């Protein structure tokens, strides 16, 4: 007999006590391996647990991302928290509820079918029984495996799922309470800054300790292990001043720095790569067929989290405790164990909220920095907070990409064969998944760089993510040239390769529609049979009052684009209206999204809005510049979209009462970028295929038009 099909995280963490327990009278401890990175996941988890356990939200005490308490759900990434983690949580809670109903039936002496639960109390045919979770808890052993047989609530029975519950963490943030990792104060804590190794293999030459100490104006000490150098002291201002002075007072040898030219996507084609191919086999081009080919690109991007990373660690009595805002406490624990030569059982990692991360930023590395220092200073809690410039320079960048689309067309101008040829470095250098911890690379005998790989296709791919459009095209294939020696460390940023791939494909679809003399909306609808895809496209066109006859080349324009994230998460279609003169002013964005069952509609809309604005910022403003090193090191050299530049946004959610939730956090990244691209083309009567849309590129396209 096959094992029952449970949601993935429940398979990997089958013990129910890992998910739910009833510690004190009246409270329910709910543990999730997912972590809050600004997306509201904890509120959604509380809603799920409240519904499936039949308790009030206020009874729930959430624990998240804690190696000592919670299930191991890997990384909180890929818009999978609801689609997988939430579904697992639902089932775990339903199983727990069923076990308690069985026990209550035994105690009361009636069939379980006569019983129900209201806010934790057991009712028999609606009447109180005197039993509740907490009275029954001693007799129900949750240290058993999930059965997957607990019946989930039907749509009509849910009180919390599907409602826009207020974010549980927002009050602390609005009243300025201590909630972020940066706010933690441990008794005896000292502050530390790392004098960063400039690159793998760089070695410390001379250290002018006196100059650094003079600059600090208060006592600081040095912690050194190989080429890992840190400055530690009781006064945060002093370590900051010392760290700034160390930039000049420490000399480095074996320095390598990326050149200005390497910041451009066009440089990727000169770098070594390995080839990967997916989808339909390569076919020869039949004679006489029309073909269309266009090349699109994007530069390197920074996560640019609003706060630089922070990590705390304490090594006491042979045990290392780490506090971090990273996306995966269990993978970080494994990576720390390897880097420090400790048994994982001797390491605990606790998640504490940081600022929004949008992917693999400096969080893991800051935690490792604190751990490395803590190992050298047993008994002292160490707080490392990266400097702003340190975050910009040393956080992993999301890769520059080139996407060349080649389409063979039929007699009415529709594609029958579609190739996306991609040049891109890896989208995952997460510790334990193809990467190493930055501080550990500076230690003596560092681990070698793992061989190049990318996110597996089963997880949605990295550079190949959304490399196949969802349209009904006879043959679709992806050719990925995986750049093996990128000039900077690259890793995951919100939507990974989906943004450049959808930008390329959906701009190309507009170019094909124009060649075929068709309206972009009608052209798309004629090529896609997936009804949910059609519905979001039709809905967004209606929302925006799409008019196929709107003339182009007038300086104002509209564009549409569509994608289903990873071809298996949420469907999203976006229309953008904008004006272009020397720069682009976004006026309005409309978005229709089908994310299936939505646990918290306002939370999902908040995520979609955020995705639209962030993508708009990438498209209009963002590229990491190099110039003998990373030249984008603060908010002036890496500007992002400002309040006065943000368009009005309208969002509609479709199909929210479907059975299955689909990940939503990254769904708008690609469609927004492409819709801006198409709107700019409509406004200018000329196509810009390279991101970001700088003033120079706008000028150049006008000269061509």
């Amino acid at each position, binding site marked *: 007999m096959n094992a029952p099909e449970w949601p993935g995280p429940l398979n990997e963490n089958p013990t129910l006590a890992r998910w739910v327990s009833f510690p004190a009278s009246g409270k329910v401890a709910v543990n999730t391996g997912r972590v809050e*990175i*600004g*997306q*509201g996941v904890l509120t959604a988890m509380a809603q799920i647990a409240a519904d499936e356990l039949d308790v009030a939200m206020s009874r729930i005490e959430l624990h998240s991302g804690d190696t000592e308490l919670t299930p191991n759900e890997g990384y909180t990434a890929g818009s999978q928290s609801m689609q997988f983690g939430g579904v697992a949580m639902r089932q775990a809670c339903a199983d727990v509820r069923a076990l308690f109903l069985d026990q209550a039936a035994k105690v009361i002496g009636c069939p379980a079918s006569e019983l129900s639960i209201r806010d934790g109390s057991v009712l028999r045919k609606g009447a109180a029984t005197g039993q509740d979770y907490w009275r029954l808890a001693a007799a129900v052993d949750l240290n058993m495996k999930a059965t997957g047989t607990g019946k989930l609530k039907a749509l009509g029975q849910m009180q919390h799922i599907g409602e*826009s519950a*207020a*974010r549980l*963490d*927002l*009050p*602390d*943030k*609005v*009243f*300025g*309470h*201590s909630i*972020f990792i*940066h*706010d933690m*104060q441990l008794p005896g804590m000292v502050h530390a800054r790392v004098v960063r190794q400039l690159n793998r293999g760089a070695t410390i030459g001379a250290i002018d300790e006196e100059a650094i100490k003079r600059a600090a*104006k*208060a006592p600081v000490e040095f912690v050194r292990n190989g080429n890992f150098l840190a400055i530690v002291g009781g*006064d*945060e*201002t*002093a370590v*900051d001043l010392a760290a700034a002075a160390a930039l000049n007072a420490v000399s480095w040898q074996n320095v390598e720095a990326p050149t200005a030219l390497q910041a451009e996507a066009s440089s990727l084609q000169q770098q070594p790569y390995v080839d990967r191919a997916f989808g339909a086999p390569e076919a020869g081009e039949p004679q006489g067929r029309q073909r269309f080919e266009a090349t699109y690109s994007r530069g390197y991007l920074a996560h640019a*989290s*609003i*706060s*630089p990373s922070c990590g705390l660690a304490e090594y006491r009595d042979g045990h290392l405790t780490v506090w971090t805002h990273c996306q995966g406490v269990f993978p970080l624990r494994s990576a720390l164990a390897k880097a420090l030569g400790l048994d994982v059982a001797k390491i605990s990692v606790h998640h504490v*909220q*940081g*600022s*929004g991360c*949008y992917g693999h930023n400096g969080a893991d590395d800051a935690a490792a920095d604190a751990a490395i220092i803590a190992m050298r200073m047993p008994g002292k809690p160490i707080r490392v*907070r990266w*400097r*702003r410039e340190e975050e910009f320079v040393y956080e992993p960048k999301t890769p520059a990409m080139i996407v060349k689309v080649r389409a063979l067309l039929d007699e009415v101008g529709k594609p029958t064969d579609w190739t996306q040829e991609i040049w891109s470095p890896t989208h995952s250098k997460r510790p334990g998944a193809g990467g190493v911890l930055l501080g550990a690379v500076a230690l003596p005998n560092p681990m070698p760089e793992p061989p190049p790989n990318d996110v597996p296709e089963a997880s949605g791919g990295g550079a190949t993510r959304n490399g196949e459009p969802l349209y009904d095209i006879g043959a679709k294939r992806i050719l990925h040239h995986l750049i093996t020696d990128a000039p900077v460390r690259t890793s995951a940023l919100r939507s990974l390769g989906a943004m450049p791939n959808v930008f390329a494909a959906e701009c190309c679809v507009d170019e094909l529609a124009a060649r075929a003399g068709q309206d972009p909306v009608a052209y798309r609808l004629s090529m896609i049979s997936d009804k949910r895809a059609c519905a979001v496209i039709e809905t967004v066109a209606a929302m925006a009052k799409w008019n196929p006859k709107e003339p182009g080349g007038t300086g104002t324009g509209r564009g549409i684009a569509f994608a289903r994230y990873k071809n298996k998460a949420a469907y999203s279609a976006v229309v953008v209206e904008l004006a272009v003169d020397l720069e682009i002013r976004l006026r309005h964005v409309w978005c229709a999204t089908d994310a299936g069952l939505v646990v918290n509609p*306002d*939370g999902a809309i*908040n*995520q979609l*809005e*955020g*995705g639209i*604005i*962030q993508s708009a910022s990438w498209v209009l403003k963002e590229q990491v510049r190099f110039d003998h090193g990373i030249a984008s090191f*603060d*908010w*002036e050299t890496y500007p*992002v*979209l*400002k*309040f*006065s530049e*943000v368009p*009005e*946004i309208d969002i509609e959610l479709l199909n929210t009462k479907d059975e299955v939730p689909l990940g939503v956090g990254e769904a708008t990244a690609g469609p927004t970028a492409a819709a801006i691209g198409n709107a700019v083309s409509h406004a200018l009567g000329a196509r810009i295929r390279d991101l970001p849309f700088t003033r120079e590129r706008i000028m150049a396209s006008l000269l061509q038009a």
Partner: protein
Amino acid sequence: MPNFDFFVNGRRVSVSLDNEETPLLNVLRNELGLVGTRFGCGLEQCGCCMVLIDGKPEKCCAKPVWSVAGKRVVTVEGLGTPEHPHPLQTAFLDEQAGQCGYCLSGILISAKALLDKNPSPTRAEIAAALDDNICRCGSHNRIIRAVEKAAVQTRAGA
């Protein structure tokens, strides 16, 4: 050790520091335990550390503590409490105006400074007043709506 006296949220404080250049932000967070004012850049660029100094919104991550001697500083903790929230705080919760929330303390201060000066700002005026604050999660429209709402409520209550 030099001594610095000033007012924080209406309370007189006195701090003794070796380094009179210590940024006000570090004094608030590390000496006075007021962690609501957040560190974002230390470069006076992002606005996470916005406070009111004698009624004017100012970034305090690089502002030496000596420069506020005798002045009146208001931080996000001084706006209101869960029991007695400022209309802006109520409106931010009503509009669910935030995602990670790291930028909100500074934004609330900038918004307070705006409403003190201009009780009926337009959307464009609100956006312009917040251009000194960076929000990376993309909560901008909710934040602007919340400020509009707080303005309406403040006028109604005035």
